[in-house]
């Protein structure tokens, strides 16, 4: 199932590309809006990268289950003999591989473009590595809950954004800690703890969402 999803997203790369372009373009609007003063930009860079990555990861969520729900594939997935939580987990993994990983790869260059000091970048990327996985898990859960609801696309960000707010806070704090000469360890550990909790819980919630959407 994962292979099939990856093959589909490779063949129509537009979803991945759209998220990636959105990320790079919005991040490059900030110097235009705030002004190119290097110290201001460098100060804001972690926040800009994080917010843009978060919003870019939300973009493809609407279609994560939508296409499968409409064309009957979701029914077939639920009848595959795999528990629904497994189906949900695979979808989250697919989202991370097609959206999280490309964002992670683009984040380094974007951060440097915004004038971030080179020694801050590893902490930012470590935070994003955990953070994008969390975004995929929370996003998948939200997407499964609004599946089949009218105007689910409007509801989805309202549901997911409060959940990912702590991720954003700790992620930015990790990069800021390095910038001010402290250790990012505590913030990264908190992110890892969030991931450890979300990893088993989100697929269970997502699976229940898929079940009730099929009913």
């Amino acid at each position: 199932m994962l292979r099939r999803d990856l093959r589909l997203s490779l063949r129509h790369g537009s979803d991945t590309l759209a998220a990636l372009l959105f990320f790079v373009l919005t991040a490059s609007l900030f110097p235009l809006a705030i002004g190119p003063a290097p110290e201001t930009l460098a100060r804001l860079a972690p926040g800009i990268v994080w917010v843009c990555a978060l919003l870019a990861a939300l973009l493809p969520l609407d279609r994560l289950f939508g296409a499968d729900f409409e064309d009957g594939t979701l029914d077939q997935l639920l009848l595959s003999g795999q528990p629904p939580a497994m189906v949900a987990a695979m979808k989250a993994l697919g989202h991370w591989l097609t959206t999280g990983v490309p964002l992670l790869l683009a984040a380094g260059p974007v951060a440097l473009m915004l004038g971030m000091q080179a020694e801050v970048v590893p902490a930012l990327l470590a935070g994003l590595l955990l953070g994008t996985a969390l975004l995929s898990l929370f996003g998948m859960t939200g997407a499964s809950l609004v599946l089949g609801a009218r105007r689910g696309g409007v509801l989805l960000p309202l549901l997911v954004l409060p959940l990912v707010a702590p991720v954003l806070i700790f992620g930015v704090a990790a990069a800021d800690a390095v910038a001010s000469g402290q250790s990012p360890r505590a913030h990264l550990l908190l992110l890892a703890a969030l991931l450890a909790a979300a990893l088993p819980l989100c697929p269970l919630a997502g699976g229940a969402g898929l079940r009730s959407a099929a009913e």
Partner: protein
Amino acid sequence: MLEVRGLAAIRSDRLVFGSVSFAVPAGGALLLVGPNGSGKSTLLRLLAGLGRAELGSVLWQGEEVLADRTGQGARVAYVGHQDAVKPGLTAAENLGRGAVPALAAMGLQRLADLPARMLSAGQKRRLALARLVLRQVPIWLLDEPTLGLDTASVARFGVMLAAHRAQGGVVVAATHLPLPLPEASEFAFA
């Protein structure tokens, strides 16, 4: 043997059907007939473990199945109104492993490498039916399976159905069209 006892379904506070009971022996077939909206599709989804029953029980080989819906999913093949065909994948990729004999069963072998978006509505339906062969499961649940099929394809589908029943498989089908299911019993919805 598939046995249904006193099954009732409610959808958005409306009773779709109450107290449906029937039994289909191994190798048997049951046709669900009734007007539109009488609950045929709801019953099929419920038997597949996709829907939720308000009352009653479904027994397979004497064991209650609705308690473990994931397990029931592995026992049934379901063809619904949607074909679950991904337009971006080829016909063979849509079926996955073991696609070649399944495609041949519905006469689609020459279209195996064609993207599914090039297929006609009838060909997509044939692809959805070919998935039945692939599943190797005892219970087939079919919702209007021959809608849009030409006579040659209906005949091929008849061969598939006969082979499945000869192996002791069970078929439950909702339809308004004549299906190639000899000696099928009927259940009429009010």
